[in-house]
């Protein structure tokens, strides 16, 4: 996994390496989904081949999620996404949510592995996956406008 090795020197704790990437400022432009896609492709291969330790795969997922969130903020949250952005966002969101669920299942069955050694507790990782589930429903659920208004009126009264 050469791409990630560039960013995770082997003699440096992985989460510290990730945090240091906050200094890795790159300009957000039209190529950003490509960066996320590259990470996602690497992650997909990792999950399929199970070459590396589970903690490594969790860290790869975590890093891909961080890059995704950053691009998401600029392209989906801070402005109205165009069709292309929405398609990429929806697909990658679903992929990262699915990967997170798989990793949680693997973690649950390996009680000798503690994710705290890479700086994330199991509970926080589970919450990150749940947040992705919520985001999928909020942004891409198929509830009609009238049903949404009906629920809001029922729960909160006239809004």
């Amino acid at each position, binding site marked *: 996994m050469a791409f990630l090795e560039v960013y995770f020197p082997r003699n440096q704790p992985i989460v510290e390496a990730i945090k240091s990437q906050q200094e890795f400022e790159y300009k957000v432009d039209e190529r950003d989904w490509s960066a996320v896609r590259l990470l996602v492709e690497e992650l997909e291969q990792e999950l399929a081949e199970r070459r590396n330790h589970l903690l490594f795969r969790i860290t790869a997922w975590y890093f891909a999620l961080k890059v995704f969130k950053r691009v998401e903020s600029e392209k989906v*949250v801070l402005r109205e996404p165009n069709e292309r952005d929405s398609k990429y966002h929806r697909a990658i969101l679903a992929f990262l949510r699915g990967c997170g669920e798989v990793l949680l299942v693997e973690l649950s069955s390996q009680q000798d592995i503690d994710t705290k050694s890479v700086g994330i507790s199991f509970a926080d990782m589970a919450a990150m996956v749940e947040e992705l589930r919520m985001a999928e429903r909020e942004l891409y659920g198929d509830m009609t406008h009238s049903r949404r208004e009906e*629920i809001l009126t029922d729960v909160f009264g006239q809004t």
Partner: protein
Amino acid sequence: MSSDRHELLSKILEAKYELEICEESHKARLLANLNSLLDKAIGSRNLSRYELIEALRGRMAAYRSQRHKQERPWGSV
């Protein structure tokens, strides 16, 4: 809308936003807080948390936009 229900709606929007922007080490705690507020709003209704989140789509988008403008008045980048 009664002031109590308005306050609960505001708390849910704020809790969801805080969950979205927080450090990873706070995710579990802030998710528990959001779920608690969602459960309070749902009460005994036959409604799931996900359905309520989906119903709040427009309100949440407006709230996010408002918070971003407050926190990053200089622009998006």
